[in-house]
């Protein structure tokens, strides 16, 4: 009886496996992608890209759930609370962007070093370990959610710290995986050849990984805890990630437009000097109100106010180079997303960041929807865009370097995806900006940030309609994403013409 039941289960499972294998086969027949066009390093890169896209979809799904709860607070109450949805939303974002960056670097590594990747086997193992860990972490977020106030909760459920909520066991796993990745990079450059891009990339990765460790510790003293927490968050997005994007951008501009190496590398050094010169001490703009000494008001205000300068330099660089090469490129969607990156980074981080970075203003905007407005435009503009540009570079090569321009079959898809995603995020940003102004004014300035003041601001019609508009533009963003995924799977399918890739001058 018992064994019969077991046999039944196995049989059913067998049917299920067969059926899903069938679906997988159908899917593969439909996308018609042939991985033999890719080098082994690039096969690993596209694995990272695929998981990145899946997590991007998860990010948007949970963002929509959280946005719905602002309007219908009873929605999923005590099933998937706002805190859970928001945690998955922002954690999925950090992780998919890191996956994207890893993919970009595996993608350019062989080309830049002139040799095959050293220790690729370990790179592949690390990918599966990381992906397994991410899956478990997300399942625990969704199913277990919270624990008692004990160390074991922080080790196995979540650490309860924005953006880096992953429990401690996963932190350690992440560090191990990053070390493997780092070994691949350094060993490959050492075997092949070093370059300016290689040097900046290596040092930047050391800093990026080292900073993560600063966020792994528990502290009773919340001032100390937030002090280190900002080391990770700020020094990632306003220093090391920004330089990583500079590296990826430098390489892409050479490949997409044929810009000379000497020019991109000189620009890269200029960007590093300006970015680190302003961003490292700009960290002080998070030390105004957490208990830290008053000198941070001056230092943080001054240096963070300089942070937009490198972003202007990056726009000039990208747009000037594109213009100087008459926008002649073999991959129009990728170039369009690179231009979107230059402007998105400048507006989201530079302009929106600058607007609330002086302490006299931040006293009122701190911790309001103002921050959310800036956070959305900055993360999307600076980091989602560059990853999407790279997805297009990857798919073009995967399809066998086919022609990918404005006039290809179904070009409306990439154009509409570009338009809907950018319009959606921009719309959400404006809605949140209005909500942020209202909240700074009513809650912070007039009511003095009490509970009553908080709810007074949340009940204002201006705030509530802003939340509705945010949801509306969130749906626009989501539709853009659906289109983007569809386009990435189909663009260049059946295209016979080869792309004319620019020669390096």
């Amino acid at each position, binding site marked *: 009886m018992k064994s019969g039941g077991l046999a039944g289960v196995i049989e059913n499972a067998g049917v299920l496996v067969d059926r899903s294998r069938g679906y997988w086969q159908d899917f593969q027949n439909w996308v018609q992608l042939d991985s033999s066009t890719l080098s082994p390093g690039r096969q690993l890169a596209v694995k990272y890209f695929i998981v990145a896209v899946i997590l991007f979809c998860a990010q948007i799904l949970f963002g929509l759930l959280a946005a719905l709860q602002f309007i219908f*607070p*009873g929605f999923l*109450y*005590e099933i998937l*609370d*706002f*805190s859970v949805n*928001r*945690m998955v939303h922002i954690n999925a974002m950090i992780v998919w962007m890191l996956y994207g960056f890893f993919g970009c670097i595996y993608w350019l590594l062989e080309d830049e070093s002139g040799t095959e990747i050293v220790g690729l086997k370990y790179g592949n193992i690390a990918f599966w370990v990381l992906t397994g860990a991410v899956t478990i972490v997300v399942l625990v977020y969704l199913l277990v959610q*919270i*624990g*008692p*106030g*004990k*160390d074991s*909760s*922080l080790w196995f459920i979540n650490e*309860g*710290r*924005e953006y880096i909520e992953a429990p401690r066991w996963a932190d350690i796993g992440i560090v191990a995986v990053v070390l493997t990745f780092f070994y691949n990079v350094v060993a490959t450059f050492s075997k092949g050849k070093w370059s300016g891009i290689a040097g900046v990339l290596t040092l930047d990765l050391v800093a990026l990984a080292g900073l993560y460790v600063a966020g792994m510790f528990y502290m*009773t*003293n*919340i*001032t*100390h805890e*937030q*002090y280190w927490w900002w080391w990770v968050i700020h020094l990632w997005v306003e220093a090391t990630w920004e330089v990583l994007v500079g590296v990826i951008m430098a390489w892409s501009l050479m490949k997409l437009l044929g810009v000379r190496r000497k020019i991109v*590398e*000189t620009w890269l*050094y*200029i960007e*590093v*000097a300006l970015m680190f*010169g302003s961003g*490292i*001490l700009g960290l002080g703009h*998070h030390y105004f*109100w*957490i*208990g*830290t*000494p008053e000198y941070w*008001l001056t230092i943080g205000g001054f240096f963070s106010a300089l942070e937009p300068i490198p972003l202007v330099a990056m726009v000039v660089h990208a747009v000037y180079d594109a213009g100087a090469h008459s926008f002649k490129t073999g991959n129009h969607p990728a170039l369009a997303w690179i231009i979107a990156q230059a402007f998105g980074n400048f507006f989201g981080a530079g302009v929106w960041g600058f607007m609330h970075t002086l302490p006299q203003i931040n*006293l009122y905007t*701190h*911790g309001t*929807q103002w921050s*959310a407005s800036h956070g959305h435009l900055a993360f999307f503009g600076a980091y989602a865009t560059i990853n999407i540009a790279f997805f297009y570079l990857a798919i073009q090569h995967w399809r066998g370097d086919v022609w990918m321009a404005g006039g290809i079959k179904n070009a409306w898809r990439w154009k509409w995806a570009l338009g809907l995603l950018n319009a959606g995020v921009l719309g959400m940003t404006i809605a949140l900006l209005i909500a942020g102004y209202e*909240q700074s004014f009513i809650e*912070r*300035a*007039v009511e*003095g*940030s*009490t*509970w009553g003041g*908080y*709810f*007074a601001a949340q*009940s204002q019609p201006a705030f509530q309609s802003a939340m509705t508009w945010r949801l509306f533009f969130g749906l626009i963003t989501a539709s853009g994403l659906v289109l983007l995924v569809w386009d990435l799977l189909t663009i260049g399918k059946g295209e016979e013409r080869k792309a004319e890739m620019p020669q390096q001058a």
Partner: protein
Amino acid sequence: MNETPLWASESFWKKTAIWVTAGSFLILVVLTFDSLKQTTAGTQRVPAYDVINKKIDYQFDKELNKFMPVIGGEELLFGKEYTEEEARELVDLGKKTTQAKNCMNCHTLLGNGAYYAPDLTKAWLDQGWISPEMREDMMLQFLMNPEKNARTFGTGRKMPNLGITEAEAKGVVAFLKWMSSIDTNGFPYNFKTLYAED
């Protein structure tokens, strides 16, 4: 062809990048040592944990031209006087509970976190707790049973039940009391505490 001027040369910018980065980082390290020292529990800016035995208020300081915490005489928490070590343990339990329950993904603490629920920086001093006598009990009841004790001010946004035990709730209250004593350079501005006369 003209020579590349110094300011446009690759090697000049490479050196500049290295020096600027190293210099900024060095300054940050020095400031970090100083900031951590000035904000260790038991300093002017971040009081010792046994501050939970005292009355804490938050008032506008005319001379400094900003809001400042004001530490007064004895005002025991849960009718008990804690030693520094007992107080640290209680605050630690509270802090750990706020992380394990993921408070920061709805609330802000010191202004950092999410924007779905009120800032907790000065929650201990909020007029919502009506009077110093009623406060402790109301806070414990609210934390352990938020669905029933929520005041949503007409928004319908209620805190979920997070399974907080009584011991944890006491820890959280102690943590909030201690946090309200931190000198946050005048954030939040214009906050009226439950001690303020109108």
